[in-house]
């Protein structure tokens, strides 16, 4: 669907932040499911093995899906518009002309700040426009924001 557009991928730090989050959520889950499963298996219950394997497979699946979602993010600053691509299962490719930008948000939550990344979000007059680029390195995010703001000012068109 890219049609010859070179998409810039987002920072690997985003992946590290995601993995951290995943680990925070998955480790207790692993402990519960796999730990208890192994414990039960050692105690002589066959079903415990199934439980442990199932838990491990789920965690690996979650990790793979997150990995795919991370890789699916991409953006391109073209001459007249910004292209944002996202989504693994439900893929979306959004094109926003610079002239339509009304507001540019740079946000960073506590976890994102710890990893030195930020999210750049573009707003247009239409609420349905969904152009968000997460996981940009801080200075990249600020550079993109300033660049977009400068272009947007030059090309702004009325409603």
């Amino acid at each position, binding site marked *: *669907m890219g*049609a010859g557009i070179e998409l810039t991928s987002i920072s690997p730090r985003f992946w590290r932040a995601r993995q951290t989050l995943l680990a925070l959520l998955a480790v207790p889950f692993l402990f519960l499911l796999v730990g208890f499963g192994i414990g039960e298996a050692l105690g002589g219950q066959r079903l415990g093995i199934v439980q442990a394997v199932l838990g491990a497979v789920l965690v690996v699946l979650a990790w793979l899906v997150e990995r795919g979602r991370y890789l699916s993010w991409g953006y391109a600053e073209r001459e007249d518009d910004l292209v944002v691509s996202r989504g693994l299962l439900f893929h979306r490719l959004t*094109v926003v*002309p610079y002239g339509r930008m009304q507001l540019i948000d740079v946000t960073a939550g506590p976890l994102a700040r710890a990893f030195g990344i930020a999210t750049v979000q573009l707003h*247009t007059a239409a609420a*349905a426009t969904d152009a968000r680029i997460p996981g940009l390195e801080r200075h990249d995010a600020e550079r993109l924001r300033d660049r977009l703001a400068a272009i947007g000012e030059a090309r702004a068109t009325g409603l």
Partner: protein
Amino acid sequence: MSAAPSPSVLPVDGQWRRLSPLSPVVRGGAALLGVLVVLPNLVANGVDPRRAGDRIVAGIVAAALLCLSVVGAVVSWLVTRWRIAGGNLQIETGLVRRQSFRVPLTRIQAVDVVAPLTARLVGVAEVRIVSAGRGQDRARLAYVRSDEAHAIRSQLLALAHGLTAETPEPPAYPLLQVPGGRLAGSLALRSATLIPLLAVVGLLWATTASPGGAARALEFSFGSLVAALALHVVAVAQAFNADFDFRISEAPDGFRLDRGMLQTRHETIPFGRIQAVRLVEPLLWRPLGWCRLDVDVARQRVSRRADQGAHIVSRTLLPVAPREQVLWLLARVTPHAQPSPPPGSRVPRRAWVKAPLSRHLLAAWHDERYLYARTGRLTAATVVLPLAKLQSLRLSSGPLQRAFGLATLRGVSAGQRWAALAHCRDAQEAGAWLWTLIDRARAARRAPSPWRDLQAGVATASVESGDRPQPHREEGLHDDGRQPVRDPRLH
């Protein structure tokens, strides 16, 4: 247009003015009426007729409530004032929390006059000012005298265009009307009306066919069916009341809509605010060749307190009309638009997998200026989105769509109601369209749109005629090459 503005309704001098003294009556009209109806009965019987003491207490409580509401409404009226000064319309209101609200006259986009039934009974109307930016639901003068309302309207419009306040409202060319009979027919053919009616008929038929078993079923369901039918009758009556005597005309600054039976509205939809147009053909209208025309307007927010529906901004450009009339009006809103699907605009057969109920209607096509998308299951709705108004484009595909080589393209405008949704296109085609449309939208944004021409026409005309006592503002309409309207189909 009403009578020429008299000096008494000329607030340009910056004098503070009050709203009509009748506004508390209209605002609290329904509540007041309710209390007045209940009060005598309450005093006579009490809550519990067996205990006499109750009567007095009930009477006192009701009277106190009545007094409070009357005092509240009067105070609200007393502390509200407005004036036109320093290029602003200023409205001040509130006793405890004082609010001062100002609208720069140059940012006024439209001025509507709305008169709910209670207001019409006492001869007042609400002036609602639509301006660019937020907080528009507060910019209203509720209520002023009816003739004054129209005078204020024409003055504000003249001032907004940089003319002197005495300039009369520009003439509007009548375009179309909707006869009452056709309106009634169109409402009767709404599927929401027909379904409970058919259910009642079916039930009656079942009863006559097998009186034994069906009679019991009838007993149980008849009441609720009748209630549902009654509700629909009320809804239809409301719609009929709202759209009765619908007239649309074209003025240099936008479309004028006049409608209503008990409650009347006089509204303007400025050309520049129209973001997208939609042609709607309900299933049951199609044999008669009727359609409806809706518009999507930028940043349109419906007020939270829709008291008596007076604040809902019009979104229907034409409630019901034969197809050729609707197409004729559509051509005035979106010149050179082609709203019928050309060959090759339908979706591929395999789209059936994703959209089994709407595949027969799905279609999308585009040209230099517009993106068209038809969707719907029973009701066909064709959205016409001017590419110059496009805010963003999105190409999306889910797992099922990808497996069948399908993708959905969505064009978004600044309107809030509908996007142009090209659902389940061939993935390759949709991908190619994305880049074509983005290029065409860029070209369309740079090319002057017919709407902007029209607005520029008004602006030049007003500059030219700045000091003349009676300028012909309609010059703007002729200057940009658009002919004055002559429609042979006018009723």
